[in-house]
Every structure is written in C-alpha cells, then in structure tokens.
C-alpha cells in the first residue's frame, strides 16, 4: 500500500510521514503538515482522539490553507462515546460545499456541533458515520446539485476489485456505509434504498430490518483501498490526461486541471466559464435568484443554489428535501430520523427513539397515562407532588419559626440591656420592691388606723363622761323637780283640806293668782313628763 492519507477522516489522522505520496498536491500537503503540527505521536490503528477544541483549530487551519479548494479535512471529531453515532452535520457539509464558491470561505458556520444520535437499537455495533461527500446527498439539479463534484460518476482507469463494488450501483463504493447486518453500500445508494424501500427499512441484500442511525462508516481498510483507486480526471473528455488517486481527484478537478474552465466568449470579459459556452455572448450578467430574489451572476447560479436559504437540501437524518431555512424547525418538529424522547418522559419513561418509530413505542409505553401502570404512576406522581408540597410548606413554616425565634431573641436581648442584666431577676426584684412598698404602706395604714381610733377614743371619752355627768345632773334635777312637785301637791291638798273657803285663797289670790294657775298647768306637764318615767 503506497500511501494512506486519510484526508477525509481527520479524526483518525495517522502520521503519513513514511508513506507520503511522491507528488502531494498542495491541499494534501497542507493537511498533512497541519496534522503533523498538531499531533506528532499517535497510534495509526485507533486514531487519535483530539480534544474537540484542538480538532476545531486543526480544521480551521486546514480550511484556511486549502481554500478555495474543497476542504477535505473537516472538523470531524470521533465522538467520545462509542455509543454516540456521528451523523454528518449540515456544518460539515457547508464547509465542504461552500469553498467551491468564488471567494472561498464566504460562509463559515462556527459551531462544530454534530448531530449525535444515541444508541437506537441494542445490537448495533458502534462507530462514527463520517460526513458524506456533498455529491452523496443527491441534491437535485434544480437546487444546484449538478455543480457539486460528482464522486459517483468517476471513470476508473481499470476495473476495480469486484469486492469493492457497491451491490446497488455496481460501481466502486463512495462514502461506504456498513449496515448492522454487515453489508456495505455507497452512502447515496443506501439512503435512496431506505427512502424508497416499500416495506419501510430493509437491507438491500438480506432485507434485515435496518435503521439509518444504526449504520456506520465502513472500515478504514475499505475506505483506504477505495481512496487509492486510480480514476481519470472528469475532464478527460476535454483533453485532460491526468490519472489520479480517487482521493485527490476532486482537488485536481476543481483547482488544478487546466481543462476545467472555458474562457468567456465576451470580448471584454476575462472571467471563465465552467461549461462550454453555447454562443458568443457573455453570460456574466446579473440575474435574480428565482427563490430568494437576490441578484447573482448567471454562471454562479448553481453555486448560489447550494447556499440559498430558500432552496432545498437533504435532511441528513431523514433524506427528505427540506428548505435550508426550515431545516432547523424540520429537525426539531417533524423529521422522522431524529431521536426524540418519549412524550411521556415527564411520567418517567426513559426511552428515546427515532421520531418515526416513536408512535409504535407510545402505543405500548408503560408510562402512557391510560394504561393501568400509567394510572399507578400518575397517582404516585401526584403523591410525590403532594409530599413535596408538604415539604415546602414545612420548610416555609420552619423559616417563619426561625424568624420568630430570631425576633424574640432580639426583643429579649434589648429588654435585658434595658433592665441591666437578667430580665427575669429584674422583674422579680421589681415585684419584691413593690411588695416591700406595699408592706410598708400596709403598716403605715395600720398605724394610722390605730392612731385614728386612739384619737377618736380620746376625743369620745371626755364627751361620754360629760354626757354621763349631764345625764346625772339631769336626773338630779328631775329628782329635785319631782320632790318639789310632790311638795307643792301636798301643800295644795293640805290647803284644800284646811281651808274653808276661797277667801283665803282669794286673800292669797292677789299675790298667788298666777301661782294658782300654775300647778294645774304643772300637773298636766308633770303628767306628761312623768309618763316616760313610768
């Protein structure tokens, strides 16, 4: 094997130091030197695993050096996990397509993210799917497909080994892809076969069930053999006698071959034409793209079609023609070749599968809310939800309690500061003080009471004595009066009894007239006054 320069497999770069081809083209030389710069010692068997950043740097370097030739060294990185399957990226495809355009790298999409399809079926072997050559995408002519360098229409110098032929197109394999059932086809042939297979997806040889994401790029040995097949320059019809290895024919035909262009028949036009001019008029006039209405030069129409947002390109996941502008929404919402999660993922279903196969899964999904298991799961989830709600409530309460505690502590601290120490002690002391005061007041009150009663007594006693004295005096006077009364009554009776007439009385009368009347009156009063005494 003379040379093994995997310029289309940059993730698997191995140092081609000792087997460098005798006449390397500038592109491959640049790529090789870049490879040598970046990675000096790695095993040629496994391929190195560059860090994604390093690989991106490498790819960018190569793009710059190789521009405007189609960049065969793309930013492909072997996925870190063997379960991840690399399905080529729009990005990689742009990188390879766009530099064909005049001015080279006019459209560089910086993000190198590929579309990683996880393991879809368990029995597949794992391996990356290298991004295909643009011609493998089979973009129709009306979308500019005929200006892509066609790897499928190459003329081989000699009949290649029959084992290197694609069973479908019977030509040497291009972008060989191996199925899980271990058959190898061209990328384009297999995609077309899957797409047009009436019974869904079946291997074109043994009709085994086949899902595109389970296919992977063929062994490097096969790819190397294919790359080393000698082909004629596609412009051999125009006179080019070059015979090159298939790997480098694209760069020859697009950059070096002096038969690739025709001079413009316009008198004062020094531009070139890719196809033979049909008449003597210069076709370099501005036309409008029929899709996006931007002005372009007529001969560049096909190149424009390959990047125009309104034209269609293949979705690499499902092989349908989709407008470039809508590719994002297509892959997000309708592409059958994209792996999506089960719609009952939120109920816990862990399965992921292609969107096209998801409907068969959802019918039998144990997490479907209407199945018995689904109902149990749903009720469990509700329980869990309520538990978590409760937990949240508890947490809220805890925080509130903490807050309250904190504030209580603050208040007590301030009270303590104000009370100068132990607040409880202060309280009891106050109460003791109060008690003592109360006691004092009480004693004073008792004392006062005693004094008042003493004073009252002292005041009352002489009064009482006086009253008693007066009462005695009154009694003495009454006795005197009674004695006097009794004497006067006795006198009267004696007089009445001794007296014969009233002369005496009349005699005594003038002096005792008033006195005479008095005893009667006195009698009546004495009777009155005597009554209480009786």
């Amino acid at each position, binding site marked *: 094997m003379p040379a093994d320069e995997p310029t289309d497999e940059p993730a698997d770069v191995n140092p081609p130091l000792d087997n460098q081809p005798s006449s390397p083209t500038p592109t491959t030389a640049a790529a090789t030197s870049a490879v040598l710069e970046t990675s000096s010692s790695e095993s040629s068997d496994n391929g190195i695993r560059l860090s994604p950043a390093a690989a991106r740097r490498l790819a960018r370097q190569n793009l710059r050096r190789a521009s405007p030739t189609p960049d065969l060294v793309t930013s492909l990185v072997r996925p870190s996990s063997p379960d991840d399957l690399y399905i080529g990226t729009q990005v990689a495809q742009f990188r390879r397509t766009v530099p064909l355009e005049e001015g080279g790298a006019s459209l560089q999409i910086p993000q190198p993210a590929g579309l990683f399809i996880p393991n879809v079926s368990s029995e597949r072997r794992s391996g990356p799917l290298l991004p295909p050559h643009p011609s493998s995408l089979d973009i129709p002519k009306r979308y500019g497909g005929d200006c892509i360098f066609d790897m499928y*229409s190459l003329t081989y110098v000699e009949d290649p080994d029959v084992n290197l032929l694609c069973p*479908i197109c019977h030509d040497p394999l291009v972008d060989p892809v191996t199925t899980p059932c271990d058959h190898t086809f061209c990328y384009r042939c297999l995609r077309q076969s899957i797409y047009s297979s*009436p019974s869904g997806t079946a291997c074109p040889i043994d009709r085994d069930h086949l899902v595109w994401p389970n296919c992977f790029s063929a062994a490097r040995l096969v790819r190397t053999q294919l790359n080393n097949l000698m082909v004629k320059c596609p412009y051999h019809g125009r006179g080019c006698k070059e015979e090159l290895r298939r790997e480098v024919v694209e760069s020859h035909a697009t950059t070096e071959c002096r038969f690739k262009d025709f001079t413009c028949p316009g008198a004062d036009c020094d531009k070139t034409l890719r196809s033979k001019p049909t008449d003597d008029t210069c076709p370099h006039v501005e036309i409008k793209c029929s899709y996006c209405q931007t002005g372009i030069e007529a001969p560049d129409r096909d190149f424009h079609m390959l990047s125009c947002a309104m034209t269609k390109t293949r979705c690499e996941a499902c092989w349908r023609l989709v407008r470039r502008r809508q590719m994002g929404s297509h892959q997000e919402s309708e592409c059958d070749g994209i792996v999506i999660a089960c719609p009952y993922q939120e109920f816990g279903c862990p399965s992921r599968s292609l969107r096209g196969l998801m409907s068969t899964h959802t019918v039998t999904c144990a997490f479907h809310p209407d199945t018995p298991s689904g109902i149990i799961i749903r009720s469990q989830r509700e329980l869990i939800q309520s538990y978590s709600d409760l937990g949240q409530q508890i947490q809220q309460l805890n925080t509130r309690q903490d807050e309250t505690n904190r504030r209580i502590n603050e208040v007590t601290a301030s009270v303590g500061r104000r009370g100068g120490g132990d607040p409880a002690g202060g309280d009891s002391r106050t109460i003791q003080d109060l008690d003592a005061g109360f006691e004092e007041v009480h004693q004073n009150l008792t004392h006062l009471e005693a004094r008042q009663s003493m004073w009252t007594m002292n005041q009352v006693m002489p009064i009482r004595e006086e009253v008693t004295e007066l009462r005695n005096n009154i009694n003495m006077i009454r006795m005197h009066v009674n004695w006097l009364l009794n004497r006067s009554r006795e006198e009267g009776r004696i007089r009445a009894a001794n007296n014969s007439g009233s002369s005496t009385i009349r005699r005594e009368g003038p002096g005792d007239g008033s006195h005479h009347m008095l005893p009667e009156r006195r009698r009546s009063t004495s009777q009155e006054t005597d009554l209480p005494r009786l």
Partner: protein
Amino acid sequence: MAKRITKEFAEVSQEPPEGFTVALPPNDSIHTWHVTLRPSDPSPYSPGIFGLVLTLPSDYPFKAPVVKFVTRIYHPNVTNDSLGNICLGLLKPDAWKPSTKLRAVLEAVRNLLIEPQPDDPLEDRIAEEFRNDRPSFDKNVKFHVEKYARAEPTFPPVVAS
C-alpha cells in the same frame, strides 16, 4: 442509475445466461430490454423461442423490474393472454432487493420454465392440471409451443416512458 443499467446490459449481452439473447429496442431506451429465451432440454418448453420484455422503472434498482412474456405460453405462473405477466417471487415489491442483478432475474425466469411453481399460480386451471394431470399439461405446453413459439418473437414497439 443509468450507469448500473448500462453495466448490467453490457455484462448480460457479452456473457448472456444460458439460453438468452438480449437486445435493446431500436430507440435506444436503456430502460427496456428485449430478451429472447430458448429453453434448453430439461424444460418441456424446449424447442420454443420466447420473447420477453424487461422494463426497468426509472428508480431501478430500488424498484423491481417488470418482466413480461411477449410470446404466449402455457404456464401456471404466466397469464395465458397477450399481457404475459409473470409471477416471480423475486420481483414482488416487498421481496425485491436492490442488489439483485438482472442476470439473476433472467435466470429465475428460465428456472420457472424448467420448474413451474403451481403453489403460487396466476392461472389456477393450468396449475391444477400441472399438479394432477401432468401428461395433459405437457401436451398443452407442446401445443402452445408449436402454435406460438416457433418463430422469432416480434416485440411490441416501445412506449416512451
């Protein structure tokens, strides 16, 4: 995929399977082949010359080719009329494999003439006869061969597809 058809035609016309000759119709349509079959000895159809038209759909090899007998033939798996449709398991849409070569299709047709498949018939009556009354079947075959399949077949003009 015209390239594959060209290749297969070159292969088959250079090294035709036993008993076959292949030609393209005069208008050079590569999607229609004119095939002449001269069954060899073990076949009851042996002395006859049968014309077949092989039509390749535009998305061949992803769709199966269509093979029809131009010459009337008395066979359980071929309609006994001017259409000459063949029931060939290989060509059924759900059994067709893009990797199948046209040479294999032609060989399958030849085998069908050697060994009819009465279990999957297009003509029930002939299949019944083939199973139950072999001498009568052979006689009818001979009769049809003598009547229709002795001269070089005439192919109908190709309809542009």
